[in-house]
């Protein structure tokens, strides 16, 4: 992709580092879950790191994202702190949601992360609302709304894309098309080969991008985001990728073909980047250094999160209403 080679090596390295952070974060989360330390359930995006890193890497201060139940990568890549994220997964008082939300409700509003969300499709409705807000307030920013190919079947996906087009909102609908929605494959959910093609139904641009290639994702989002910020309206990007793990941690994945479960295709956006790094002006040592930094950061975050307190009993009834005695706002 022509656009990707125009990216400075530092930029590319940062995307790589973000992917490594997401990888390390989710491996830590998976381990914590398997060891019985994380309550509830978690959905990880292992194998999809290029999507979050590439998309959020193309954003600037003031840009916003809305995320999904599979949102760790999006949040990290947009700048959320891995310590406070892990604290939330561990249900600690210092978690982003004070332990009240868990994996599906991580937000860092100051960093532009309007929240993961447990209701499939709502990222798109909330996303156009944020874009509407930017437009009304005259902010020169954009929104990226993440969703999955499964979410593309929801009514709100359609409602949101139609309204974004009608109102010329500055939003990028980013579809992580990871072959599965829960336990069923793409063609249970989508009646056409590409979700991206549906952009034509609204009159805006839709492109398919290789979701295993962080540079390609980055380039596509950079272009769409620039258009959105400049008043050029919405676009749809579908990144074809692959969800390595089950829908939730612990999912036996019996519904996947054996070869896919083994990842015989060898899909891995991090390894893929490494293979092409030289062409981007990055030598193996720099990659190695970035990876180590990323892993160290997550390890420190994990140690910190593990040391924290559980939420106090009062957290149960705080923040239900703004303006409450104990409310934060």
């Amino acid at each position, binding site marked *: 992709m022509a656009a990707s080679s125009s990216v400075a090596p530092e930029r590319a390295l940062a995307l790589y580092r973000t992917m490594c952070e997401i990888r390390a974060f989710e491996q830590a989360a998976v381990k914590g879950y398997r060891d019985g330390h994380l309550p509830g359930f978690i959905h990880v995006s292992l194998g999809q790191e290029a999507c979050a890193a590439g998309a959020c890497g193309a954003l600037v201060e003031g840009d916003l994202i809305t995320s999904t139940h599979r949102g760790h990568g999006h949040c990290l890549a947009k700048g959320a702190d891995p310590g406070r994220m892990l604290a939330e997964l561990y249900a600690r008082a210092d978690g982003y949601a004070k332990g009240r939300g868990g994996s599906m409700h991580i937000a860092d509003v100051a960093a532009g992360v309007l929240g993961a969300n447990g209701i499939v499709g*709502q990222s798109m409705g909330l996303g156009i*609302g944020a874009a509407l*807000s930017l437009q*009304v307030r005259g902010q020169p920013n954009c929104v990226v709304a993440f969703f999955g190919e499964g979410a593309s079947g929801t009514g*709100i996906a359609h409602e*949101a894309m139609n*309204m974004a087009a009608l109102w010329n909102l500055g939003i990028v609908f980013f579809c992580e098309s990871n072959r599965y929605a829960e336990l069923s494959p793409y063609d249970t959910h989508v009646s056409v080969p590409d979700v991206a093609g549906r952009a034509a139904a609204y009159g805006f641009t839709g492109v398919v991008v290789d979701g295993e290639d962080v540079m390609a994702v980055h380039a596509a989002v950079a272009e769409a985001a620039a258009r959105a910020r400049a008043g050029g309206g919405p676009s749809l990007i579908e990144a074809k990728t692959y969800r390595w793990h089950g829908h939730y941690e612990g999912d036996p994945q019996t519904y996947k073909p054996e070869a896919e479960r083994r990842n015989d295709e060898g899909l891995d956006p991090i390894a893929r980047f490494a293979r092409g790094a030289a062409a981007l002006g990055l030598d193996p040592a720099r990659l190695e250094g970035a990876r180590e930094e990323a892993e160290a950061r997550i390890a420190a975050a994990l140690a910190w999160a593990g040391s924290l307190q559980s939420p106090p009993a009062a957290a149960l009834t705080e923040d239900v209403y703004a303006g409450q005695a104990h409310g934060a706002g």
Partner: protein
Amino acid sequence: MRGRPMARVKYYRALNRALHEEMARDDRVILLGEDVGASGGIFAQTRGLYETFGPARVRDTPIAENGFVSAAVGAAMTGLRPVVEVGFEDFLTCCMDPLVNQAAKLRYMLGGQVSVPMLLYTFGGGGVNAGPQHSQSLAAWFAHVPGLKVVMPATPRDVLGLVKSGIRDDNPVLCLLSKKLIGSTGEVTGEGDDTLVPLGAADIARQGRDATLVALGQMRAPALAAADLLAAGGIDVEVIDPRSASPLDMVCIAASVRRTGRLAVVQEAHAPCSLAAEIVAAIAEAGIALRATPRRITPPFAPSPFAPQLERAFLPDAERIASTLRDMVAA
């Protein structure tokens, strides 16, 4: 009203004035909904707003209640204070998720990082032969959900004051208006007066000694009419209009029931799991001694019928309310 000039206005004009005043006061307030824009709304309720505040702030939506209510939530999280119209209360079925799983919970589940200051108003209730899908009164659903506030103004004054207070509130507020009362009139303070009615405060619409009659939403008028009928027979009824369904002013209601020793609740919603159930249960739990068993006055457990004769039999009216209270006082 401390001596300020009063004006007689229609119910829908009070809404219109509230929207005008709040949009003028705060440019973060925007209005979204089907036909709220240049057309001025199907009941003329939004007339003039588009001309005054322009297309960015007054926006016609497509028919996509789920999507545009969700959008309002997203906008409320990011610096705006959206007002949303959903034409008929019955269509709230189409946007339950953004109301209940998003607006109501986001503040709590994001650890207090956001508030969701928005007001959704809609026209509900029966009495205009609008049939089963256009006559419902669903306040109980929303009063069941923490994080939401719910108001049910039954007079122009309360429309004005509650809509204005609701727009200024930092929480998601549902304002359940009455279709039947759209053209009804009432006194409000003159233009220029910043009339607010606090959320969560009941109104004692009529004082009385013998029984407490709580009347929800548009049941206020038949309840007052029933009180007049009863007064003619020597029964002195206190009529309370809670005005807010959530928070519900049980302090006011309980104090009244303590005085009168009798409680009836009239509503146009169905009885099971309703606000009437809530009020009767709360009084029972408060251990207030009653001189008669409490009563709920509600429609039968059937959808709202279209035919005028049937709908008249369906909705509680002054006569039925009065006869229930006569029985209670006689008991």
